[in-house]
């Protein structure tokens, strides 16, 4: 369970995020939508303790994120390309993350075999450094790396952007399978309403830092969201 209380983030006088209470139960696939500047990435950055909240706190499975580091052991994330190490090959990068998450060489190998279809033969054994991969392929590496080491929480910012249609569909499948087999919480943000409604059980709409909608996904959700954003 990820519990947010009285969270706010201000830059000077400007409030960019203000969430009084938000609880994300374990095992939920949680979607965050909103226009640019709505505070999606700020929320994720706060959740990962990359920016400090002005007030309030986020508690990730019992650990307050800005006072302890314990939550890092079970939280995987991919925010943007700055999470990748450009001068490593994909294999070396996975091994590096694996080392940090306590996986040995064989573990990493087995882990990667599950994603052969997702990689579509464009990632592994290419003898290319990550900096030389296309944006989409870089994203694939980052997303899969976020899933290493059996995390209980996975945070993906805009995972569908830059991916080709086939890979988008495969990613949706992977996310759904993840939560079927284990108790795992997935947090996704996206501009693409179709994708989020398809994957997420619950969708929260942010506007100027505030929660304006909290929807349990149903067949009408997509329409509801579209009419909300069609201003």
């Amino acid at each position, binding site marked *: 369970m990820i519990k947010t209380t009285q969270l706010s983030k201000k830059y000077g006088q400007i409030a960019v995020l203000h969430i009084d209470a938000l609880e994300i139960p374990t095992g939920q696939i949680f979607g965050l939508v909103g226009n640019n500047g709505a505070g999606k990435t700020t929320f994720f950055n706060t959740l*990962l303790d990359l920016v400090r909240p002005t007030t309030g706190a986020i508690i990730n499975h019992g650990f307050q994120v800005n006072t302890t580091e314990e939550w890092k052991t079970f939280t995987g994330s991919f925010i943007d390309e700055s999470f*990748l190490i450009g001068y490593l090959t994909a294999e070396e990068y996975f091994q590096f993350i694996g080392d940090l998450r306590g996986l040995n060489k064989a573990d990493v190998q087995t882990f990667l075999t599950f994603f052969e279809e997702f990689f579509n033969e464009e990632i592994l054994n290419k003898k290319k450094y990550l900096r*030389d991969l296309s944006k989409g392929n870089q994203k694939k590496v980052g997303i899969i790396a976020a899933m290493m080491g059996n995390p209980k929480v996975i945070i993906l910012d805009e995972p569908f952007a830059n991916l080709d249609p086939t890979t988008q569909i495969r990613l949706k499948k992977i996310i759904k399978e993840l939560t079927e087999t284990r108790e795992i919480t997935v947090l996704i943000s996206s501009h693409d309403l179709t994708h989020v409604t398809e994957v997420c059980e619950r969708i929260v709409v942010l506007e100027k830092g505030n929660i304006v909608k909290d929807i349990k996904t149903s067949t009408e959700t997509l329409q509801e969201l579209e009419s909300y954003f069609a201003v």
Partner: protein
Amino acid sequence: MIVPFLKLEWKQYFRSSYWQKSIFLNILLAFFALYFMASFLIIGIGGYYILKDQFPTQDPLVVVNGFLMYVILGDLIFRYIMQKLPVMNIKPLLTLPVNKNMIVHFILMKSAISIFNLFSLFFYIPFAVVLILNRYDAIGVLAWLFSMILLTQSANFFNFLINKNSRVFVGLIAILIIGFVIQKFEIFNLAGFIGEGFDAVYSNPVYAIIFLVLLVFLYNFNYKQLRNEVYLDALISQEVKFAKSADLSFTDRFGDIAPFIKNDLRLMMRNKRTKSSLWMLLMGLLYGLVFYTQPIYADMEVIFVLVGIFSTGIFLMNFGQFIPAWDSSYYKMLMSQNIKYERYLNSKFMLMTISILILFVLGIPYVYFGWKILAVHFAAMIYNIGVNTHVILFGGSFNRKRINLDEKAAFNYKGTGAVQWLIGIPLMLFPMGLFWMISWLSNFESAVITLLILGFAGIAFHKNLMTIINKKYQESKYKMIHAFNQEN
């Protein structure tokens, strides 16, 4: 048309977080620049009379000309190490209605007024004035001065063609050494031979045109090369080099810091920026020869400390001062990973310590110049491990400048400037001053022992020191994440 570019440059410079954070460094740099200018000015004014006094039989201008080869080579070597290549972020400009020729000319012209081209004028102009006052042929002197200015500019553009190519750099040093050796053993006076060419400019001012032609040629060559790169091709589709994987499993013995050490080794081997700084290791190692081969330094024990700290600590200074900026492009990721800061910092400490040990072992042959030297080098090594590593790690927590490692950014050579040499000063001057004081108050042995004690104390309190450093990094974590996120 030029004005908007200048505005851009201005904003880029003053809005970068780096500028705002390090006004002190900028002031220090300005101070150094003023110092050099003043020195050149004094030599320029007094040079004629000093030479007249030292070599009464020779014409001072001829003497100066005889040295010019060394000056030019020295200038090029100095530029290679210190001068930044002209940087301008051209990508956003490409699709705008800006003439591409214009962009290239602007980049090149901007470099022409670089401070490196101004330094030497502080010598040449007063020297020329003094010559004219001493009834030298005014037209001849002006032609000579004109040639010198053109030569300085040519050196500027030649330096860009070298483009931090280490082979040419080694070539320059080789010419310098060979020229010196064959002159010393009176085989052939290369510098004098070249000097005669400059004498000819004075007696025959028309020859100055040769240097004009040289400059125009170099400028055009640069222009053509850059003009070709003002396409996204050059930025995006550079030939993709196949990744080379060396077996680094030997690092596994370092236990839980092994992944970081592996990463740092790869970082050094796979990025242009870091690869070229490996040459510095060789330079640092051979630095002692500058002093130890000269008898006047034989009894200046404090020089041993300088060489000892520098030659065993060159990697420490080169690599250490950019911790943690080396990892700046993926710093956010590291901070959200399941690692303790301490482990990360310890891996850097270990890497620096190993380099110090290796460099010390490689420097053992200096014992040829006396046992005292080896003793001081040993003390300097311990001091480097115990004190300087911790100092530099602590200093790293103030690092706010992103390093862009990606080779793809074709115009990006940022951060290779003069500032990086300044950090060496406290690391070297403090132990030197301390050593000098103790050996003056008591004797050589106790001065060596003092350095050893400080070093061993640092090693003994390593854990406690790391805790303090760790805390400092924790405190500045958010600021670092923010600063490393900025491109400029």
